[in-house]
């Protein structure tokens, strides 16, 4: 689910950048550092705007200036039970991998409808019900997230296509 989230971050600036457009530089650096990262439970998708750039404080010892910046960002937090659209990128006998934006998903063969079977003789190998559903690398799939795990800077999920309206997307 997407949220608009107020966040805060300390940004350090090298002394060579001290000058008139310091605040712009701080904002640029913030964008570079933060956008597209995984911060614990959620991904920071885009920064809307910054407010409240504090006055800089020189860090003793290094000479870097530290600013505390408040900003508003669009974040995406995947939830268990959430349905997302993803693109399959790798298929093997145990299931297939898919990518939903920054999130990597695995859908195992146990979490597919029974009629969808692995076909190793196809090129490339695919999951198919020998009718309208063919899942191979590049296929758009609609997946329900049933498990999530995060580590520092990374997040993985287990998906399922066992349910109504899940599975291949007819584009």
């Amino acid at each position, binding site marked *: 689910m997407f949220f608009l989230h107020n966040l805060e971050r300390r940004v350090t600036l090298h002394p060579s950048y001290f000058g008139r457009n310091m605040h712009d530089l701080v904002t640029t650096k913030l964008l570079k550092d933060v956008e597209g990262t995984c911060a614990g439970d959620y991904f920071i998708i885009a920064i809307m705007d910054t407010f409240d750039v504090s006055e800089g404080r020189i860090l003793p010892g290094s000479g870097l200036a530290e600013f505390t910046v408040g900003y508003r960002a669009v974040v995406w937090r995947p939830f*268990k039970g959430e349905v997302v659209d993803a693109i399959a990128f*790798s*298929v*093997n*006998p*145990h*299931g297939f*991998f898919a990518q939903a934006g920054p999130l*990597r998903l*695995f*859908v*195992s063969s*146990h*979490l597919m409808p029974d009629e969808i079977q692995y076909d*190793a*003789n196809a*090129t*490339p*190998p695919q999951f198919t019900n020998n009718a309208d559903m063919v899942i191979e*690398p590049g296929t758009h799939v609609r997946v329900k*997230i*049933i*498990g*999530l*795990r995060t580590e520092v800077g990374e997040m*993985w*999920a*287990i998906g*399922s296509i066992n349910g109504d309206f899940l599975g291949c997307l007819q584009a």
Partner: protein
Amino acid sequence: MSKTIRLGTRPPYPITVVKLFKKSGDAIKSQEPLMQYSFKWTKEVGDYVRKETWKEEQTTIVTWDSPADGDLKQWLIKEGEVISRDGPCMVIKEACSHEIQFQGLCAICGKDMTEVNWAAETRDTERAPISMVHDQTNLTVSTVQAQRTENDLQQRLLESRKLSLVVDLDQTIIHACIDPTVGEWQKDPDNPNHDSVKDVKSFQLDDGGPRGVARGCWYYIKMRPGLEQFLRRVSELYELHVYTMGTRAYAQSVARIVDPDQKLFGNRVISRDENGNMFSKSLQRLFPVSTNMVVIIDDRADVWPRNRPNLIKVSPYDFFKGIGDINSSFLPRRQDLLPSAAADGASVNGNGVTPKANTAIAAVAEKSSALDELASIAGADDPVLDDPVLAQRQVEEQERTLEKQIIDRPLQLLQEQLDKEDEEADKATTQSEDGSDTPPSSPPHHRHQVLRDDDTELKYLEQHLTRLHKAYYDEYDRKRALHRASSNVDLSSVPDVGRVLEGLKSKAMRGTKVVLTGIVPMGVDIAHMDIGQQLVGFGAAIVPKIRRDVSHLVVNSQRPRTKKVQQAARVPTIRIVNQDWLAACFSQWRIVEEGPYLFDVHPDDMPVEGDAATISDANETDDAGNKLPSTPVRERRILRIKAPVPRLKLVGANGETKELEDDSDSDDEDDGDIEDVEDEDVLPDDINDGQLSPIDGLKTFNWGQVDDELQEFLASGSDDDDDDDDDEDDADTMDTDADETTPSRKRKFEGEESEDTGDGTDAETTQDENTVPSNSSSSRDGTSVAKKLRRTISVADQGWADTLSRGR
């Protein structure tokens, strides 16, 4: 699926079951109390101050918590029962057995497997320890699931009557290099190599490729001749997998070239990134349960330590001469090469590469030796797989070798070398029809080419694979008939392809008794060498000495005059062949017609009348060991008498002319080490007629001058030994252009001397300070030597190989 749960090792046995909280059919949760038990223990009670204590038996009641989720099916214990040791206590129906896990998540129920469960003795992540997917390492499965998947695979293969074939890329079906010269030759239709390289494919790696100089470089891929048909036909009998030591990006790029529409390999590509081991490949990575239906083709046997029986060793494809395998810098240096492959490429095909260029090739190969050493050291003491430092270091090393290839352009150097030789040859033919200086059978007005496209290995390989497939399925059908299986697939009668392969191979050279000379280094047990293992695998017998029943003597044509040759020449039934015969046998799986490989024995080694009696008979034991037979000694004396022969020449089977050292002693030594061979090659070609040894030239040398220089050097260097830069020293030893370096060195010494005399104490302190850095620099010696060496090579572009060899 029901599962039996044990009590575990934690309860203090013996215990008494007090109460069962749950009954059959109840749902149980992990870490929920399931039963109560009591146990007895002793405690010291009483007055500790007065030391009036005694032991008293205590009874404690505790609960036992469920290690797993699910439904309780049945208790295996009763209330009141005394349990003396760990055993099964209940049967449950597990909610999920977590058989497929992805990055710490159960891929079936979505639970986090890394959560610590204090009631269970093993972690949930251990339930799925096997990684068996080609392109991912973070997907793991349980043994049961692996078994199931593999059964599915075998069933599918049996239905379509196929086998699995694991194919190595580098030097097996393709040869890759990144020398930019190839690209230039492709664009230049006048270049003699243009025809050879025009169908070389190329690609760039955007990411995942090397960094630094080699970044964004072009990879040139030469497919082995006939590869397309080979793969197409073989893919009807086998399901193909790619298993390479290159990176993933590289593997995929090559797969795209070899198999553009992904019909052959599909997504069955595994690379170094997923292998999980820098030094060896393992079939168990892909087929964890059974390798009964898997065949490997690879040019290196030593990277498959666990799967030798399944391996068909292919002779390495060496199209870009001297390049080797660009992705194997990690691996220990290959030991299995027959010398012909590395240094004697010309021998069978005749007019290819002349001996001089061969030394150049050898030198190119030699340059990477420092790296090889590193790899072999790392490989020797059973490498720690997860050592990130080592891995990182090796990745860097590999990048360095790649850079070197781009900068040094070994192919260009080789071609220049050849061109020069051609010119010389032209001159020689026009000046006199002496013939002694011309490379044999060289058309004079045609530039020689370094790259030749004349490999025939795949033709034979296809035959072998077809035969193996047939033999395998014959065996399968036979077994199935015995089982009288009703269905068309019978997993229980699947034969082991390793056995079938061994059976086929062992017939190949049965009956031959082979003696090797000059091929295996001295002091190495041939049974442990790759060549020995191959010979035995093909059913040939290796005999240590010449006997009457020996059928073949394999001679290293680089070392043509050994004792064994002399002995064998006296027995007419022994065919004396060069090492290429062996290579041909290995590649064709039969006893190849000896004709083209017959070795011309040196006239002096030909039998003298009456000598034949000294050769031992077959029934004689071999323990004579080091004792030399008497005849060679006599022969040696004969040779001595006519010692000052002007330049011995040996005309090999290929017609190639070879110069011999006159000193027969060193030749007679024994089937000596390969290094010896190289030393012989290194001898300068321009020794004057009638000269016995290369150092004879020193007779006319001005020793006084040298003594003076030495004196001067010792005088000036006596007090600044320590602070003398090691690099400089190396440069002096390496550089043969003494005129260039000596003045500068002198200048340096003079300067330092004046400093030292200026202030004695100061000089001492500097000396002390400098000892440390000089030590550290000496530890970097290897790299600095290599650097110097490289510089020397790049500076002296003319006759650089000579410089190099003399420097060595």
